[in-house]
């Protein structure tokens, strides 16, 4: 039995220490999901804390045959979707990813030269800003699919959707992103730089 399963079972039996181990393992993926969904590090911190609290309260109902990470991210995604629906009529800003302050990018072991890295960072910042334009469930599907490498079946299970609904949401989200991407060219981007120069497959 893996350490994680042991901690989950111990936590279900009431061990706060075991649950603390689970928080230690999963706080980054949960925070990242909340950050991608909500766009602000402060809101993401609160949402991540709330996600762990909800999972703590609902641990007795957790089915150990299901991957703990998927269950946890599913709680986080639903919480963020609910939060965004409630905030639908209030305006809130999206942070630009920053290396300073409350959020930190995890170091990339295969970091290329600084210029390429700078262009990539600009693209990531831009994508982060465009994500807020998407419907909250579409955004969650996209984040789970591309950041967490979830299969369409896993995304469907996490968001309580059918696989065909996930496919359709992913297509809609990607079409919308591409539409916005081509409408607003990246400032300072070289016109001769073509995306297709890097093979996709």
């Amino acid at each position, binding site marked *: 039995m893996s350490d994680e399963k042991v901690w989950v079972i111990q936590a279900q039996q009431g061990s*706060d220490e075991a649950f*603390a181990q689970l*928080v*230690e393992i999963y*706080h*980054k*993926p949960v*925070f*990242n999901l909340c*950050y*991608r969904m909500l766009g602000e*590090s402060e809101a*993401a*911190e609160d949402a*991540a*804390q709330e996600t*762990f*609290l*909800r*999972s*703590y309260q*609902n641990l007795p*109902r957790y089915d150990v045959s299901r991957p703990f990470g998927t*269950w946890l991210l599913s*709680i*986080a995604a*639903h*919480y963020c979707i*609910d939060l965004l629906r409630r905030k639908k009529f209030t305006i809130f800003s999206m942070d630009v*990813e920053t290396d300073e*302050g*409350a*959020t*930190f*990018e*995890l170091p990339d072991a295969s970091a290329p030269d600084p210029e390429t890295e700078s262009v*990539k960072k600009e*693209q*990531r910042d*831009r*994508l982060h800003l465009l994500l807020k334009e998407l419907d909250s469930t579409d955004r969650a599907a996209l984040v789970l699919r*591309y*950041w967490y490498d979830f299969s369409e079946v896993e995304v469907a299970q996490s968001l*309580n959707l059918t696989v065909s609904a996930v496919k359709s949401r*992913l*297509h809609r989200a*990607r*079409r919308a*992103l*591409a*539409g916005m*991407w*081509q409408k607003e060219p990246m400032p300072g981007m070289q016109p001769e730089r*073509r*995306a*297709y120069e*890097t*093979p*996709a*497959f």
Partner: protein
Amino acid sequence: MKHQPFEEWLLNETSLTPEQKRELDLHVRSCVYCSALLETEMVLRSARMIAPAEGFAARFRVYLAERKLADRRRRGWGAVLFLITGLPVLFWLLSPLLSRFPASPSAWIVSLVEWGIFIVTTVQAMSQAGEVLLKVLFGFMPPFVWLIVVSAFAGISLLWSVSIWRFTRVPQGV
């Protein structure tokens, strides 16, 4: 070849043959939309994990302790409120029985039956009074007022049902 299959390939992340890859490459050079679709996919795939500020787990421990304390306080206040409001009602309901507490078992049974009859007759009287009131009101109130009253009751019932559902449902994903 038309635009549609290329878009489908990109959206479905289809595994392509070398020939199809060449065709796609040629298409993407001339199609701004497919180029954007491909570029956004690459950016999505290259996006990194964002980590919270140091000490998240410690902050969560504090948050959890605060929430546990708040829950204990809320339960405590709930129990106090229940006792304050529930006990007088309980005493009022049991007062006919309590007044005969020292009496014999037969007197107990008699008072229990009397109390039951009192409850039943009160309910009957109230329903009859309601019926009479409704008959009188039917003559006074025009149909549109009834429509408003029924709609208001339906609205309140719906609101009540939704509120109960919202408070009792298990959060999704759990």
